[in-house]
């Protein structure tokens, strides 16, 4: 078993090891491992070791929390005042924020130690972590395979044990999909359960920050620290405590059979068996895993992305063009053309197209209405039958880096099971559950009703006992 949060917290508090020692060990490991996987964009030993020293003092005084002294990492779209925050873009390549994200402040208040900032797809736009300005991240299980994305660096770092846990962000599966590909736990909270203050916005009504960790309990601990109301985010609120006795598990077997590959179905079969062993009743549901989700996501999320990307003009902060320009428009055009990668440009153009002129009514408002109906439908026709939805996290294990998808829709299939939770605002967790024939991790995903994050953790922990996942052991 790799180092888990709980084990290390115990060792730290028993003073069997100091945070400075632990942090040094991890920083060294990053140096070695990053050549293979490129999980990290940036580290700063001085900052990390200072935080570790502080943590050791807190432990000496005898007032630590579970997170005190534990080295962790943050996806590089989460603002850190003491390290650059680049969103893996040339646009922010040298950007040092003037403030810290609420989640980072909360972690620091708990004595956490930041090892560095992890890699992602540029501005979190993607699901491969192949397209960022600072290079690709590879899957620690097989460096020819993708780590997934956009929180690929976070997932890979936890899998290879270059951080104990990490925070990622999930807009359309961006925590759960890479976590599943890398064989770790990834949790996307109820929309609004965690403050988005200091998360570089992708699609604001979809984005949530969540933990990526080595097991469900670790993820739960981190979530409980970062969650809650925030004066800097009007959409953040305090989720209620929830439990669910004798939960009913809904499974859309027909759709899953159609979408998932053989290896995945084999692992998923074991998850269904786990339900029986746990004494959980299962029911058939129709969660309509079809391209409706993908289309809705394209229209709504891309529109929000286009709007959110407007602020990168080269005026005030970030990259600006060095070539000559005629007027402000020309300056902005050149800056954006030079600094954004193709995936960002595509989304900005597509999103603005959706918001322009008549398209606004034809596509945007129509999609908004369907999203609204979908939310209603989920509660009326799915959550009336079950408490949690079980599915594979992705239809296949991590593909090769050179795998080519034949269409945009097909390219979105890896997120097909994950998307509903973002569209509807549900809590959703992936647990590594087994291995493919090529020895790559395969995850299962559980999603609950809005606000049922705590109950979801309990159920996920019960499933975890039956996992046949094999962790990496990188020294």
């Amino acid at each position, binding site marked *: 078993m790799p180092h888990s949060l709980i084990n290390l917290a115990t060792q730290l508090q028993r003073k069997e090891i100091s945070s400075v020692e632990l942090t040094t060990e991890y920083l060294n490991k990053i140096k070695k491992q990053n050549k293979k996987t490129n999980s990290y964009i940036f580290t700063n030993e001085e900052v990390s070791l200072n935080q570790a020293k502080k943590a050791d003092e807190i432990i000496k005084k005898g007032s630590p929390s579970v997170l005190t002294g534990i080295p962790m990492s943050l996806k590089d779209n989460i603002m850190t005042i003491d390290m650059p925050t680049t969103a893996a873009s040339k646009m922010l390549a040298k950007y040092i924020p003037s403030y810290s994200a609420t989640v980072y402040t909360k972690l620091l208040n708990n004595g956490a130690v930041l090892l560095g900032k992890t890699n992602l797809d540029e501005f979190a736009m993607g699901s491969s972590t192949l397209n960022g300005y600072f290079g690709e991240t590879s899957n620690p299980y097989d460096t020819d395979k993708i780590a997934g994305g956009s929180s690929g660096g976070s997932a890979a770092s936890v899998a290879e044990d270059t951080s104990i846990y990490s925070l990622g962000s999930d807009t359309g599966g961006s925590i759960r999909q890479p976590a599943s590909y890398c064989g770790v736990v990834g949790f996307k909270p109820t929309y609004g359960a965690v403050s988005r203050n200091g998360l570089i916005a992708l699609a604001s009504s979809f984005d949530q920050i969540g933990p990526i960790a080595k097991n469900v309990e670790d993820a739960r601990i981190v979530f409980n620290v970062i969650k809650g109301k925030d004066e800097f985010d009007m959409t953040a609120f305090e989720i209620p405590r929830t439990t669910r006795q004798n939960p009913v598990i809904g499974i859309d077997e027909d759709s899953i059979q159609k979408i998932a590959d053989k290896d995945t179905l084999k692992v998923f079969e074991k998850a269904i068996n786990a339900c029986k062993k746990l004494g959980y009743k299962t029911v058939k549901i129709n969660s309509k895993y079809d391209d409706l989700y993908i289309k809705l996501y394209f229209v709504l999320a891309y529109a*929000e992305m286009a709007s959110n990307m407007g602020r990168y003009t080269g005026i005030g902060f970030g990259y600006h063009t060095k070539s000559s320009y005629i007027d402000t428009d020309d300056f902005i055009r050149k800056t954006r053309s030079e600094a954004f990668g193709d995936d960002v440009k595509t989304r900005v153009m597509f999103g603005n197209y959706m918001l322009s002129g008549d398209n606004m009514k034809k596509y*945007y408002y129509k999609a908004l209405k369907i999203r609204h109906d979908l939310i209603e439908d989920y509660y009326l026709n799915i959550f009336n039958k079950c408490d949690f939805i079980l599915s594979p996290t992705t239809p296949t294990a991590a593909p090769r880096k050179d795998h080519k998808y034949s269409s945009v829709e097909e390219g979105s299939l890896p997120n097909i099971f994950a998307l509903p939770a973002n569209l509807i605002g549900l809590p959703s967790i992936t647990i590594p559950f087994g291995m493919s024939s090529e020895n790559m991790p395969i995850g299962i995903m559980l999603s609950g009703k809005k606000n049922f994050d705590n109950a979801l953790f309990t159920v996920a922990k019960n499933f975890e006992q039956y996992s046949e996942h094999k962790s990496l052991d990188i020294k």
Partner: protein
Amino acid sequence: MSKYNLVVGFETHVELKTKTKIFCSCANEFGGEPNTNCCPICLGEPGTLPQLNKEVVKYAIKAGLSLNCKIPQEMSMDRKHYFYPDLGKSYQTTQSSRPICLEGYLTLDSGKKIRINHIHIEEDASKLVHDSKNIYIDNNRGSTPLIEIVTEPDISSVEEAREYIEKLQAILRHIDVSDCKMQEGSMRCDVNISVHKEGEPLGTRTEIKNMNSISFIEKAISYEYDRHVDLIENGQKDQIIQETRRYDEKTDSTESMREKEDAQDYRYFPDPNFFVLKIEPSFVENLRKMLPKLPSEIKAELIEDGIDEKAADLLTKYKNVSDFYLEAKKYGDNKIIATYILGEIFRSMETEEEKENFDIKITAEDLGKLSLLQKENKITAHIAYSILPKMLKEGRPHTAYLTKEDLVSVDNTEVDKLCKEAVDAMPQAVKDYKAGKEKAIKAVVGYVMRATKGKANPSYTEQKILELIQ
């Protein structure tokens, strides 16, 4: 030309004087050192989110209530997109689909109601300063709170346009939500203008943006009216196009801005950083209860109290003036106080702004007490008027200027005696008066006034003299 009706509508931006900006806790002040009142939020730095200032909501609802608007129970915020250096996020957070106030009106003196379509809240853009080479951005104004008051095209003359704006200013100042200083930009108007013949559909409208003076608004409307009518009369109606124009005060004319503004597609859509915001009816009712009296209400009360309409208008035009007047009234005579304010005090003020500020050295209480002395004939109006300028200049109370002599009221039997003496002493004046020269009587009254050093009551004296010569 009068066969064409003028049709005017207003979109008025008003800066709210809340303590902090609309989405962050920066001070809502500008004019100071550039870029000193800003933070990551109002600069639109990545990862920042807006927090709606509750005071802005309150101020906007107060404005809505005093303009007879309905306050819906839900409102939402929208994004309006455009690229320009004055807008850090490249979108302005405003309201388009669900504004905070709907369907109100403002009543003109004629009784005509100018309908308000809606009022919405939004953030202001930053201030740009251009020189020959560069554009400088001052973000102090960025994200300061505004309301935009949008009327129906109900205004049909230049006079009504002026009255609408003046009344709007008076109301918003009375409820203390804005200074409404057009010259400083805390109130700015976009004016829509079209013309048509009675019974025919409305003509194509043009919009003049960013007007910051009432007299420019009047001139611009007149110019546009003439321009539209001339084009129609010359058979060039198709040259009136829906466009944005700018008023140039130097040439007193308007010119098209079409190249910049008209091709804009603002791509309005709901801002995902806000949920739909609920406004409790009880919250609105509490605000309604707390609203001070509006200028129209105070004016009606003044008229009931015997102040004539024109004076009542002037006294309620500026909030500080009406506050002062109402306070002074507690200590003296309302009509006499009105003559002091509209006479001697207003005369000492050269600009509208001075009247708006009404920053004077006399206290309301002192002025009230002075009026009481005059009312009770303890001093004459002549004396009151002679000491008022000194009080205004030096700021000492009226008692500092009144001598014992001033305060001795003149016995009427003494005045009676003097009147007889005057009539006898000025036979020619009496003769002239009888021959129809009414003014001649003033000379006889003047004799008495001189003899009493201005302490006799002039109207009593005139009455007495008339009795004697009839």
